[in-house]
C-alpha cells in the first residue's frame, strides 16, 4: 500500500483528505491551531496575514452553500484570495473531465483546492495530479469523508467536554450515507474515546460498521443511555421513504431526538448536528433550540477549524 497521501515525507499535512490515518498528535495540533484562531474571529479586525498572496479555489462539484461559505470566510480571514467555482453548473456539464478542470485551474496558479465531490475518493484522485506546492482540502466526498466537519465536531466536543478519554458519544441516524459520521468516528477513535455508538435501523447502518470501532444500537433508549455527546445526522429527503425507510414520520417516531429521548443521556450531554437540520424529522425544535444544543457554536468553530487546516497545509504554520 502506498504512503498516506495526505502527509509529506516529514509527516506534516500536505493535503487534508480524511481524518483516517491522521496521527493523534496531528489532530491535536489542528485543534490547538484552531483554538488560537478562535480569538481572531472575535476581534474587530478579523484577519491574519498567513495566506496573503495565496489563492484558494473552492471547487464544488456538488452544491453546498454552508460549507462553501465557511471555507470562504476562513480563507479570507487568512488574507487569501478566494475564487468560488460552481463546477457542477459549468465545465463538467460540457463534458470536461475532473482532471482537466483541475489542470486548468492549476494553470491559473492555485495554492489550495477546496474540493467537494459526489464520488467517494475524488479528492484522492485530484491530490495525485496536482503540483507539489498545491494542496487539496476535502470538503466532502461521497459517503467517504468530510474531515473539516469531523474536526469541527471534535473541536466542539473538546470545547465542552475538555477530555476525550472518558466519553460516550452516540451518533444517530443515516450512518450508511454519512461522510460526517465516518470522519467523526475516525477522529473519536484516534483520540481515544472509549465508547462510540451508532444508532439507527439496520437499513441505515453500513455492513461491518463494528469494524470502524463502534458499538451498533438499533434502539434509541439503549443507545442514548448515559451518552455525553449526541450527534444527530441529517436525513436526506430522498431517503425518507423508499426501500430504506417507510416514512419520515416513522423515522421520527423511532429515531427523532426529542427531549424525552434525550433524558436518557447524561444531564450535561451536548447535542450536535452538522446541518442543515430537518426539524421534526431527525430532531425536534425543542431540542435543537434547547439548552443542550451546541449546533450554532459548531458553525462558529467551523471557521476557526478551516482556518487552521488551510494555514497548516499552505501557510507553513
Amino acid at each position, binding site marked *: *500500500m*502506498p504512503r498516506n*497521501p495526505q502527509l509529506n515525507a516529514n509527516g506534516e499535512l500536505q493535503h487534508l483528505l480524511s481524518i*483516517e490515518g491522521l496521527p493523534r498528535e496531528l489532530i491535536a495540533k489542528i485543534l490547538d491551531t484552531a483554538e488560537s484562531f478562535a480569538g481572531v474571529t472575535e476581534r474587530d479586525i478579523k484577519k491574519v496575514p498567513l495566506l496573503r498572496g495565496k489563492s484558494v479555489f473552492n471547487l464544488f462539484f456538488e452544491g453546498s452553500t454552508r460549507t462553501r461559505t465557511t471555507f470562504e470566510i476562513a480563507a479570507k480571514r487568512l488574507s487569501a484570495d478566494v475564487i468560488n467555482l460552481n463546477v457542477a453548473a459549468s465545465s463538467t456539464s460540457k463534458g470536461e*473531465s*475532473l*482532471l482537466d478542470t483541475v489542470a486548468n485551474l492549476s494553470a491559473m496558479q492555485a495554492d489550495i483546492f477546496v474540493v467537494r*465531490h459526489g*464520488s*467517494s*475518493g*475524488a479528492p*484522492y*484522485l485530484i491530490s495525485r495530479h496536482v503540483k507539489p506546492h498545491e494542496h487539496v482540502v476535502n470538503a466532502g*466526498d*461521497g*459517503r*467517504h*469523508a468530510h474531515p473539516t466537519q469531523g474536526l469541527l465536531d471534535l473541536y466542539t466536543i473538546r470545547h465542552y467536554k475538555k477530555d476525550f478519554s472518558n466519553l460516550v458519544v452516540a451518533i444517530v441516524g443515516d450512518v450508511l450515507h454519512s*461522510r460526517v459520521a*465516518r470522519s467523526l468516528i475516525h477522529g473519536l477513535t484516534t483520540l481515544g474515546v472509549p465508547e462510540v455508538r451508532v444508532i439507527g435501523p439496520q437499513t441505515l447502518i*453500513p*455492513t*461491518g*460498521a463494528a*469494524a*470502524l470501532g463502534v458499538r451498533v444500537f438499533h434502539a434509541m433508549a439503549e443507545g442514548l443511555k448515559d451518552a455525553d455527546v449526541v450527534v444527530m445526522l441529517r436525513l436526506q429527503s430522498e431517503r425518507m421513504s423508499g426501500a430504506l425507510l417507510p416514512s419520515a414520520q416513522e423515522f421520527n417516531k423511532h429515531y427523532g431526538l426529542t427531549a424525552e429521548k434525550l433524558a436518557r443521556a447524561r444531564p450535561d450531554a451536548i447535542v450536535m448536528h452538522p446541518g442543515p437540520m430537518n426539524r421534526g424529522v431527525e430532531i425536534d425544535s425543542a431540542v435543537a433550540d434547547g439548552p443542550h444544543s451546541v449546533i450554532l457554536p459548531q458553525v462558529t468553530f467551523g471557521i476557526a477549524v478551516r482556518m487552521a487546516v488551510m494555514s497548516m497545509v499552505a501557510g507553513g504554520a
Partner: protein
Amino acid sequence: MKLLVKGGRVVDPASGRDAVGDVAIEDGRFVESAAGKPDRVLDAKGLVVAPGLVDLAARLREPGYEYKATLESEMEAAAAGGVTSLAIPPDTDPPLDEPGLVDMLRRRAEALLLAHVYPVGALTVKLEGRQLTEMAELAEAGCVAFSQADAPVVDTQVLWRAMQYAATFGYPVWLRAEDPWLAKGGVAHDGEVATRMGLAGIPAFAETVALGALLELVRATGARLHVCRVSSAAGVAMLRRARHDGLPITCDVGIHHVHLSDLDLGYFDSQCRLAPPLRSARDRDALAAGLADGTIDCLVSDHTPVDEDGKHLPFAEAEPGATGLELLLPLALKWGMQRKLSLAQTLARVTLAPARILGAQAGRIAPGAPADLVVFDPEAPFRVSASTLRSQGKNSPFLGVELAGRVRATLVAGRVVYEA
C-alpha cells in the same frame, strides 16, 4: 514445414508428461517424431514447453471500442502472453447478436493468424435480456456458446426460456451470477473496506442469490451452464455442492480474484475497479482453493482493455476491468506456487480445462492436434509496466509489481507468432 522444439522441459497436463525432450511439428500439427531434417529448430533448453494457453474471456474491443483496443493490438498481446486460443465475450458495440457481425469478427481475427478465436454469442438481442438471439444462426457463424457478458437478464422468465432454448440445441450458456437488483449502484465488495471508504457495496449474496436461481434453472432445463467469474467463498461452496450433485456445470475465476482482495483498493485505486468486485481476503483464499480442488475448472484473464480516460476518474465512476492477456501465465504460475501444485497441475487450469469447456482440440501436446505451443522461462522476473504491455490497455492492478514467468516463444498451428 517441419519444426522441432528442442531440449525443453515438456509439460503436457493432458498426458501427464513432464520431462526434458523434443516436440516435433509438421504442417501445423504435432507429430510423434520428426521424420527427416526439420526446416527450423527452436532451442528450448532451460525453458518450459507447454500447450498454448486457452483463455475463456478476452475482450478484444472490436467492433465499437477501437479507441480502447484493436484486434491487432490485443491479439499481439495474446501472442506475447502465450495465449493461443481465446473466447471473445459478446459485449462489443454492437454486441455479438448477429451472424454477420460474428462472421466478420472471426474472419478478421483469424486473418491476423495470431490466435484461434472463439466468439461467444449474445444470449439476448443487444444483451438487453428481452428477446432471444438467433442462436442457431450464430452457432453456424462460429459462436461456441451464448452469454450476457456483464449484462444481466433481469427478467427471470426470459432467463428460463433462454436456457430452455439453448438446452434444446445443446448450446452451452455462459453466465455471470450477479443479481442485478442487489448489485445495483454497487462498486465494491459490501464489507468493512467499502464501509470505511464510503463506497456503495455489492454484497456477496448478490452472487449466491443469482447462482441459486441459475442452478435451479439448470435443474429445470438441463442447460449446460458455465458460470463465469465466480467471486465469493459462498459462491464456491454452492458450486461445490452443485457439482457434487452432478449438475452439468463448469466455472471459471479471473486472475485478479485469486490474488487480490478489497484491501488492495488502497486509496481508491481505480485499477482495482473490477466486475465482479474484488472481495474479502477470505473470499480470495476460497477462490484460490476452489481452483486447486477442481470446484473451479479454469483461470481466465478476463482481459478488458480500458483507456486512460476510463480509469482517470473517481473510483465509482471509473470503468471496470483490467488488461490480462499478458498476465495470465505469470499469475497462473504465482497461484500454482502458492498452492504448491506441480507445473502440470497449474498449467491444466489455463490449457486443458478451458479447452474442454470450449470443446476445442487445443490445450494438449498430442499427435494430430494443432501445434499451439508456449515456450517460457518460469523463473524469469519482469516488472509489469505500461511500456512493456503490448495490449493497448495499460490498466492493471499489477502495474509496478514484479512477477515471474516470461514467454520466449508462442506458436499457433505450428507458426511462430511471438519470439523474445
